[in-house]
């Protein structure tokens, strides 16, 4: 469905320095799957999502959607065409809806700019409000009259009304209460099944990602550390970074939590992506670090079918 090859995204800072938000990321997203994308803040998750949606031009690499190679820098025409195929649900349901437009206008705008008849738009808006668990009467209200969960539903309806095939969910639940998170996740799963969507699900809550995803990709400093089936990555993580991520996720059972082996890593902050990195990005915090990690960048290696890890010391660790 989507083929990402060696995609990099650099942000330029002053004085010629730049940040490598994405560093040669290669990834394939299969039709009808939910691919989870995890990583801590600053790992490049949202950047990858925005590059895929055309909101950031990419610096290098190529992205293929179906059989089409996507342009580096979207023109207005590209947006009009591709936003019908690829849509994005945004992180913050409060700021991402225009406060001066009614909910009906927000949801229907994607259709009205494609010259759909007014009546059809109205019908579709009402239908979508029902699909996301709101009421058709809500179309004439304004975003500030809704709660966070409701606003995220509006965001979902506005993304899906153009019937895209591929949807990027950029931390769609991180701004919501836990009980509301579950509702939104269930809604997304249901819509995915009803419409045969392909989803890229970006989050930092590992257990939520495992719950929803078919496969999980772990991103660190703009590079892929591990990618594989959700349960494999969650229960049999091979990369020391993924292991650390998993073990830092508290278990709801205190007994099991105490027995959970803690993995010693340097708990310092994630290094700044503006530093020029040679070798493995995780080298500065990894407990198994050796000389080669600091000089040579590890390739993604197959450890069994479709589980890949980028680490020099796979055999030693596991």
């Amino acid at each position: 469905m989507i083929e990402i090859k060696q995609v990099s995204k650099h942000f330029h800072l002053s004085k010629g320095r730049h940040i490598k938000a994405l560093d040669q990321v290669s990834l394939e997203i299969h039709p009808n799957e939910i691919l989870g994308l995890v990583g801590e803040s600053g790992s490049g998750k949202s950047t990858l999502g925005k590059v895929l949606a055309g909101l950031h031009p990419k610096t290098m690499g190529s992205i293929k959607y179906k059989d089409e190679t996507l342009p580096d820098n979207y023109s207005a025409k590209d947006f009009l065409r591709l936003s019908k195929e690829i849509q994005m649900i945004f992180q913050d349901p409060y700021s991402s809806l225009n406060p001066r437009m009614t909910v009906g206008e927000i949801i229907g705008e994607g259709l009205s700019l494609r010259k759909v008849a007014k009546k059809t738009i109205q019908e579709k808006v009402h239908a979508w409000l029902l699909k996301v668990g709101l009421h058709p009467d809500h179309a004439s209200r304004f975003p500030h009259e809704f709660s966070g969960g409701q606003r995220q539903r509006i965001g979902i309806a506005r993304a899906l009304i153009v019937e895209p095939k591929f949807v990027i969910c950029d931390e769609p639940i991180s701004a919501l209460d836990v009980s509301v998170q579950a509702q939104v996740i269930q809604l997304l799963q249901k819509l995915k099944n009803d419409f045969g969507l392909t989803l890229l699900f970006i989050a930092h809550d590992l257990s939520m990602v495992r719950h929803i995803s078919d496969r999980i990709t772990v991103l660190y400093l703009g590079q892929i550390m591990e990618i594989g089936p959700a349960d494999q990555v969650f229960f049999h993580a091979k990369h020391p970074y993924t292991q650390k991520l998993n073990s830092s996720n508290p278990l709801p059972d205190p007994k099991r939590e105490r027995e959970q082996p803690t993995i010693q890593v340097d708990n310092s902050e994630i290094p700044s992506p503006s530093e020029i990195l040679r070798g493995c990005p995780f080298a500065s915090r990894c407990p198994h670090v050796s000389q080669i990690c600091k000089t040579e960048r590890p390739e993604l290696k197959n450890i069994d079918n479709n589980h890949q890890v980028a680490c020099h010391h796979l055999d030693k660790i596991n």
Partner: protein
Amino acid sequence: MKKYLLKRLWHGIITILFISTATFFAMHMVPGDPLSSEKAITPETRKALEAEYGIDKPLFIQYGIFLKKTFIHGDLGFSYTNRNTKVNEIIANHFPVSAKLGLLAIFFATSGAIMWGAIAAKYRNKLPDYTSMVLVILFISVPSFVFASGAQLLIVKLNAATGWNLPYRGTDSFVSQIVPAMILGLGTMAFLTRIMRSSLLEVIHSDYIRTARAKGLSPKQIFFSHELRNAVLPVITIIGPAIAAITTGSFVIETIFTIPGLGKFFVQAVQQNDYTVIMGTTVFYGSFLVLTVLAVDIVYGFIDPRIQVEK
């Protein structure tokens, strides 16, 4: 809504009372009185005149009479310097002239400010932005009589050189008001341009603009239906007081272009201690200001759904 309006009007009345009280006593503290500019006046005549105008009475009695006449009968009294002319008539005759010019000026100021502000924000830190910033400082800091007389000179020279007959003064035609209106609105335009620029910059970087891009809207569609609509709000806030200030007339512009507006009465009245005209124009200006600000607040509720006028 009705309750809200009544409350706001009540507050407005208190404001106006406060303004007129302060002006009344400040005015009487200024040395001299309306009669001191009269030529060679005998003590007897002066006494008679003082009695006629009622300024021989104690100050508080005068104040009481003023309040009663103004706020109960709506009568602002006779002017001291223009005998036989009522202040009410002065306002009724000259305010419409100023208001017409002022509204035209406001139109130029807001449309110009929205355009320039948008250009400056779109080309942030590039040449158009710097150019507009320099012009803004120029328009705010250079006094309006410089631009007014400069523009007038230009028109006269242009007429002489080309044989055209462009109007450079008076209010005979609509065309003759265009140049004065533009110059009258210049300072306001410059100020609003800055506000529009910063407000638009804030909107451009907000998340819902990103949402609009994700929907597939072209930059032009985003600008007109998302950015402009949100950015114009702070501009409207300033327009209320600006309308009150500009439509009540400008002494300088009206004098230079010989426009018989209200502007000169504000200045002349103070120069000549014309008590009734000072009080009349003050009360009028205060009420007008209160009303325009109230009108803007009501318009606000329509433009921005987040701001709800109390039910």
